[in-house]
């Protein structure tokens, strides 16, 4: 029965697409827009229209609270990105204005979100209304600040099971999670980039040794490997008196540097065969000059793009490790830990959406940053002509 309904729906869409194209052709005369439209494109338009109509219907349904929030969030962020881009087009130097003129809306959104996260992370102590470890009077206050639903205007996003303010913890979480992820990514790039460039420039046995070592590291599933090493490190951390977080940074950096190594080696490999590198070698230039002055400036674009992506992965790994309990240690606020601690509230989603939102806030913060960074990276890759049509 369901299959029949779906088939009928698809058939209806196909017919509608055909009609849409025929009507368009008749109405628009000989204009290329409809004349050269393929059936696939017409179907795409009709399908998009149908999906939009379904979205509007769903939005008007009483029970679709989360969908409504998502749509509202989407609209708000789109408008904010548009305002931000318009602002950038009119303020600043000629170069930045040109940059904003060529920027797609997604990239503007990404940059805006990253800027907001950066500001929040840096000024967490000033912005946050309470401390991240501060235990307040009421536990499990519902988000929304509406006393009728069990909220409290003093805690707009509610409190967790032991009565800590979720908004403050989210803000401090930006500092901890994003800050540590950033430091880890930088370390991974320093390691992977250095060895990758060395391998590509010197070649020979060094390249072989490094590459095979990296192959071995890459052959082990990274999250399980990280978990294993973290378990070992937690013993050492107690003995040595070094915070476990330091071990986590190093472990994740080493595991992720293998991917950076691969990329840096491949990119530099394409550059070292260029004639200008040969000219520099024949001039008698040293290794340092070759790497820093000749290769690095030409490798920045792909490496920067990889930096963005790698940051997301590192960030997600830290959140995963924290979720599993071996990452950033309480009482420091961390988004991954917050998701784990509040996870059981997700069960209330059916009848009390306000209560179920608490774990989703931290998860949403992670998702939003990941999406934003990816938008910016996509745009950078496009600009460095990697993905141009």
């Amino acid at each position: 029965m369901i299959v029949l309904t779906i088939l009928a729906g698809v058939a209806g869409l196909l017919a509608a697409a055909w009609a849409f194209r025929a009507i368009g052709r008749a109405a628009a005369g000989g204009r290329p827009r409809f004349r050269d439209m393929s059936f696939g494109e017409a179907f795409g338009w009709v399908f998009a229209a149908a999906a939009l109509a379904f979205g509007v219907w769903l939005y008007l349904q009483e029970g679709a609270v989360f969908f409504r929030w998502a749509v509202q969030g989407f609209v708000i962020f789109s408008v904010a990105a548009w305002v931000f881009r318009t602002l950038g087009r009119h303020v600043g130097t000629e170069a930045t204005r040109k940059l904003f003129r060529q920027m797609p809306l997604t990239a503007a959104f990404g940059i805006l979100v990253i800027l907001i996260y950066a500001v929040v992370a840096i000024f967490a102590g000033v912005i946050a209304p309470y401390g991240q470890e501060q235990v307040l009077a009421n536990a499990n206050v519902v988000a929304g600040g509406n006393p009728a639903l069990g909220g409290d205007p003093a805690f707009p996003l509610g409190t967790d099971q032991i009565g800590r303010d979720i908004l403050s913890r989210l803000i401090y979480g930006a500092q901890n999670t994003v800050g540590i992820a950033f430091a880890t990514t930088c370390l991974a790039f320093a390691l992977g980039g250095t060895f990758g460039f060395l391998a590509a420039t010197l070649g020979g046995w060094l390249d072989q040794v490094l590459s095979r070592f990296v192959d071995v590291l890459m052959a082990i599933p990274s999250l399980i490997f990280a978990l294993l090493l973290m378990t070992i490190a937690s013993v050492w951390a107690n003995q040595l008196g070094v915070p476990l977080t330091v071990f986590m940074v190093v472990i994740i950096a080493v595991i992720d540097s293998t991917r950076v190594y691969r990329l840096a080696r491949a990119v530099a490999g394409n550059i070292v065969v260029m004639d200008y590198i040969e000219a520099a070698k024949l001039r008698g230039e040293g290794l340092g000059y070759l790497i820093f002055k000749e290769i690095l400036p030409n490798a920045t674009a792909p490496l920067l793009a990889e930096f963005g992506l790698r940051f997301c992965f590192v960030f997600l790994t830290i959140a995963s490790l924290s979720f599993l309990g071996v990452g950033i240690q309480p009482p420091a606020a961390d988004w991954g830990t917050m998701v784990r601690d509040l996870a059981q509230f997700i069960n209330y989603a059916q009848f009390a959406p306000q209560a179920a939102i608490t774990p989703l806030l931290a998860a949403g913060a992670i998702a939003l940053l990941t999406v934003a960074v990816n938008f910016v990276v996509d745009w950078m890759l496009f600009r460095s002509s990697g993905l141009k049509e």
Partner: protein
Amino acid sequence: MTDKSHRDRLLRVCDLHLEGRSDEEWIPIVKGVSFDLHKGEVLGLIGESGAGKSTVGLAAMGFTRDGVRIAGGSVEFDGVDLVNASADVKRNLLGKRIAYVAQSAAASFNPAHKIIDQHTEAPVQHGVEGRADSEADAMELYARLRLPNPEEIGFRYPHQVSGGQLQRAMTAMAMSCRPDLIIFDEPTTALDVTTQIEVLAAIRKIVEDFDTAAIYITHDLAVVAQMADRIKVLLKGEEVEEADTRTMLSSPQQDYTKSLWAVRSFERPAKPAPAVDAVPVISVNGITAAYGTVEVLHDVSFDIHAGRTVAVVGESGSGKSTAARCITGLLPPVSGQIELEGVPLPADYRQRSRDQLRQVQMIYQMADTALNPRKTIGEIIGRPVQFYGRMKGKGKRARVEELLDAIEMPPAQYIDRLPSELSGGQKQRVGIARALAADPKFIICDEVTSALDQLVAEGILRLLARLQDELGLSYMFITHDLATVRAIADEVVVMKDGRVVEQGGKRDMFQPPHHPYTDLLLSSVPEMDPDWLTDLLAERGVDNIGDAAVDKM
């Protein structure tokens, strides 16, 4: 080449304007080009790179590349308005009645499919003939185009076939539906002279056999003179003049056309022979070199004396560039020695002293890859000045400006530019300045003009000649273009398969008797005479040109 203008008109391009998107605005790239093409007629489109030749060629098919649009004018093919035609109409024409042959056959064939599968695709898709018929037809076309083993060659993959053969296979593919019009976009530019002549002969034969009209796009006048009934000259998107081939060659009207014609007249006066007891600047003694275990140079010896130019000539794969790599020390030879002014040089460049490295400089073929795209001109030229001369600050800047003056590029205008903001010829000049900055005795010029247009190339040759006279430099000039040799060389070394076949003064080399290989090379260089190819084929026969002749040696 009979007059075909009385025949039915096939294509009419009228006041065609094309615009290209650059950064944020549309810039006109073709400003009003018109021409008619009749059935069976070949039109040659010539001009420098950037003149809009290829863009016009594609627009004649009603097609524009991404970022290009037709801003005005009309293209009418056999009564069909291609500018406003619907996608369906164009789809029925392209590939079937209008075909296109691209410059690089190697990049245009899909490497994952056999040649014949790609050949039969168009006829089968367009419903011209079935797959089996089309395959049989392909073999016949291959035979007509004189491809070796026509029965079998189509079943190879593109990488298993040589460049010249691939270009002919592509011409066969364009012919597969027996189109009325073929557009050839520089089909022989990437080929060696000896290979080029075979492809030219094949294209001309098949176009005549099937009475196909063609637009032949090239920057080489001598080539177009062999192929076209009429020639149209373009300059920066505007038409300069159009006339039938013989009129155009004998009496060009416009100054620009005349200057194009005059390029080939540049020739330096012969220099006196060096003293018998003079110590050569570079002496190559019995070099044998190998990549891995494969020997690519066999006992190569030649001398280069102070202030003289030695041209090393040969096809690709003959070992010219490998000899240069041995001299620079990038490829240490298996045996033999290289001497700089009588002093043996260490085989590996890493063991050479900074002064020895300074004496031997190199100018590369592709200026694009020879200049670091992220550095300004001032930095590129300044680095060797600082590195060898140990000059800094003002002294370095003054020397860079002096060098920019020497290569005829005003320092104030160019010193802070990036290589991407320069034209091809200017980039090559910067490459020369970088070599000069080291204050060398000897410069290796590796095909420095082969990627440039003729006028620009001539400017580079004149610059190199002037610098040689002023600074007493010695050049090793690697090239496959004998016109360049004639213009600049004092001595010539002919190489084939890693061996020196013949060497001597320029005058001796251009006069018979020749070694058979030198003879083949010399006879394969197209001349500005429209009958040259016809005469050559009559004289030598189709079996004694190009790769076929090389194989016989």
